[in-house]
């Protein structure tokens, strides 16, 4: 028998025996934890394995084992080295203060061309780091990707840009962004809080009447916003309309007690209203 035939026979025997005894090839363990990866045969298997590793990683991270949690999520991204997979590593790390891990994952996601991650990164920079300049830069890049209005974390990018500009002291730029948003957004989709943020910007500029007008516009659309009642009260106080101001503060507190205030348990939002602020102002009222 020739050498080539012998080699073919040898491999044939090995293959038959390997299948017969189910000696599936084990993948290399990329991390120190047990993530031996069997050969994945179908897309469905791949997705299942990905989900298993990602969820396990999230669970460990939730319970404070960030090293193990991130190692497992890294293993998941080895299975699916796509932008979306890297983006999914970010939220649990953001929520737990592991900003380096979160933004590294988002940077990778953006690098791989996952557009959603760009908007999310901008939103995260704004809300988790108060990096308003960085957020604006990302918002603008993200916005340029599509012709129509864009949204990040379900919020209008134009409105978010306005808020970021206001925080940076670019009050004119903020007003411009809010105006654009109000003008271009469909009425039924308009976030009424744009009037709050624009009103606050006018207030900072000293334009009390314009501020008041915006708060009234807000309340006409949504009377249950304690933020607008409170800010209206501040303007009225500046205008020496103490009684009206107190009524606004009382209404604000009433609505806060009923749970109408906008906010998250995870992070402070720009222009966050605190109950203590309203209660402090109410001390001025008889």
């Amino acid at each position, binding site marked *: 028998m020739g050498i080539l035939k012998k080699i073919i026979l040898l491999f044939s025997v090995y293959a038959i*025996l390997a299948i017969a005894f189910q*000696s599936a090839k084990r993948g290399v363990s990329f991390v120190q934890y047990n993530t031996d990866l069997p050969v994945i045969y179908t897309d469905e298997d791949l997705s299942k394995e990905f989900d298993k590793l990602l969820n396990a990683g999230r669970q460990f991270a939730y319970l404070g084992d960030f090293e193990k949690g991130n190692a497992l999520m890294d293993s998941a991204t080895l299975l699916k080295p796509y932008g979306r997979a890297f983006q999914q590593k970010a939220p649990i790390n953001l929520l737990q203060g592991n900003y380096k891990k979160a933004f590294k994952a988002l940077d990778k996601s953006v690098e791989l061309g996952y557009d959603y991650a760009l908007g999310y990164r901008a939103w995260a920079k704004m809300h988790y*780091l108060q990096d308003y300049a960085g957020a604006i830069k990302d918002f603008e890049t993200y916005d340029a990707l599509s012709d129509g209005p864009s949204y990040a974390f379900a919020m209008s990018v134009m409105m978010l840009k306005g808020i970021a500009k206001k925080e940076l002291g670019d009050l004119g730029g903020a007003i411009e962004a809010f105006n654009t948003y109000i003008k271009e957004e469909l009425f039924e989709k308009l976030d009424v809080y744009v009037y709050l943020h624009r009103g606050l910007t006018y207030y900072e500029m000293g334009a009390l009447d314009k501020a008041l007008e915006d708060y009234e516009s807000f309340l006409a659309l949504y009377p249950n916003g304690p933020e607008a009642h409170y800010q209206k009260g501040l303007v009225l106080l500046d205008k020496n309309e103490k009684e009206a101001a107190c009524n606004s503060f009382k209404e604000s507190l009433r609505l806060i007690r009923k749970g109408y205030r906008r906010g998250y348990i995870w992070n*402070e939002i720009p222009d966050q209203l605190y109950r203590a602020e309203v209660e402090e102002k109410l001390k001025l009222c008889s």
Partner: protein
Amino acid sequence: MYITICAFLWSIWSCKPPDTTLKLEGLWLGNYQHELYEFPLPIIWFFSNDSLMTEWKRREQKDFEWLLSGDVLLIDTMEYVVQNFTKNQIVLERETVIVFDKIDTTRKEKNLDFLEQYAWRKKEQKSRKSQKKDLYTEEIHRFKDDKIWIQRTYWYDQLQLGQEIEMRCGKIERFKEYPLIVEAGYWDTCDSLYAPLQYVTDLDKHSYTVLTAKGKKMREITYEATDLFEVSDSAFYVCSQSVGAYYGVNISYKGEKKAVKDFVFNALKNQQFGTESGYIMIRFVINCAGQLGNFEIEQTDLNFNTIKFDKQLIKRLFLLTKSLTDWKIGKNEEGEHIDGRKFFTYKIENGRLKAILP
């Protein structure tokens, strides 16, 4: 032909059926292992020669009959499939995988009373100060009143930031003549269901060594004797095995974030500490009684690279965080108070506190 036969024999060998000439007799320390999750579910098995064995689990001992037949180990009415069996390890499967390591019982320990006469420091910690990390924690522990007390000292280079005492359920016990240190996970019941078990292999008045499951492997850890420290029942403790994040257990601060900001900013009075900019993250546990402990501190620049902030700034922020005591304690679905993990990230610009995130 030769090569073909060798390949055939190698394939047969790679299946590794259990070697029935291996002996189970002796002491085995167990650890549950799941594919992804690590359960330190400690069990000790002692197999006698006469088909009898004793199991130690959750501080209880029970006797069973056992039989090893083919690749099945039968203990009482429980059937375990033997996945792998070597001289020093047996891997079993019954719903989940359990790994048992054979314990060498030839080394004799001495008087267990030594354990309570000293405090103990992990041997590797001696070189801690020469390590690269600027922020680090030193721990020593002692045994007293069926508890393990841990004195935890937080350091930044040579500057001590603070100290705390933590207490845990922990007992020195004997299983037959074999000495164990048993920690417990749940503070109110001292249930040891998911707590690591330590088998004392060596002990004298200078050091003791234990064998314990850590990271799915059995490891030997040696502790060296040091001076005792004072303990108190007002020490910090963690109420349960697992501590969830603040948003999952609904932890909040009385007066909300505004109260935290007012307190910290008023305390620092816009003071400047050095000129660096970046983030100082301080993470901590709030236990079911509202106490704070188990701190972690990280310092990075604005691009998340590790930097060194002014030591006094770190110390001030650490102590200010530690003195935030008006927490609304986390609750579970049944409305019971539970532990939670929280953090603040202090954003620093040119040495001054700029914001408290997130």
